[in-house]
């Protein structure tokens, strides 16, 4: 799980959680991390469920398979990437 780190001076902007223990980064943006939240709950806030097709998730640069979404507990400062297919060449 994530190591505890001292808060960085000026790391949080206005309106964002001030203490680093209470946030995760989701697609590059900080979001509050409810205590004991699992990945599936976080994805729900993006409108993504286990039924949503054609999306994929990584936590701290590790692919998270769908089977792991409900069980995986997020840790403070985890970096979550949620992607889907878009138009491209």
């Amino acid at each position: 799980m994530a190591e505890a780190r001292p808060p960085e001076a000026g790391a949080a902007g206005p309106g964002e959680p001030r203490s680093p223990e209470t946030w995760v980064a989701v697609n590059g943006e900080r979001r509050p991390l409810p205590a004991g939240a699992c990945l599936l709950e976080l994805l729900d806030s993006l409108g993504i469920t286990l039924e949503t097709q054609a999306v994929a998730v990584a936590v701290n640069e590790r692919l998270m398979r769908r089977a792991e979404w409900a069980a995986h507990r997020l840790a403070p400062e985890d970096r979550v990437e949620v992607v889907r297919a878009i138009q491209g060449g």
Partner: protein
Amino acid sequence: MRTETEIEMEEWTIADLRLRSRLIVGTARYPSLGVMLDALRSSGTEMATVALRRVRPGTGSENLYDLLTQQGYYLLPNTAGCYTVKDAMLTAALAREALGTSLIKLELIADDETLLPDVEQLLEAARLLVRDGFTVLPYTNDDPIIAQKLADLGCAAVMPLAAPIGSGLGIRNPHNLQLMKSRVRVPVIVDAGVGTASDVAIAFELGCDAVLLNSAIARAQDPVRMARAIRHAALAGRQAFLAGRMPRRFLADPTSPMAGRIETDAGGR
């Protein structure tokens, strides 16, 4: 109804995937999704490329995956925008998980003006992705040596650029593409820089196995008409290649015989 086009373009394979169309078409930069779908259909392609990008809240309703798979297209995800091996590896893993395919169009870019590949990183990422069971289609430059290395690493095809991505400049180094085709034992798919139908015909006349293109169709004034033109150009170029072109000569070689010509007192030679 079987048209002449369907009868005459012979099948080819990428790894164990059998295809009849020798065009792979991108899905970006069309005036609308409707035009994109019409152009894909008009091109006769069986495979479309897609990119992987972050989900944005509120965009759940638009689903390119559904649109394309319902029409029966194979999807070829790319690692567009990746500048490092790590980026490319994670993007490929996410693509395989999201789309259920091991196909990956591997793009590792050196700088954002030329979008030319970083071949050192490309070779490293290709090696790792092949090890991890991906079907790797690497976007590379027109250097036959690099193409040979990529093929030797286990890539399922090589995809040399004709010219920089989106430039529409056509095939800048036909000789190198011929050298490449003469040496590698995997399909050679011209990818990037194609501008119009004649570029596609030339690619096939050089012996290339397929062409991957996006801007040439999407950014034409009439993308659907251009897609149809390119479909015909692919057929023409491929047939011309299989027919075996005449040799080139430095000097003229008359087609009508010299023997038996009339003479006049003007002293015709």
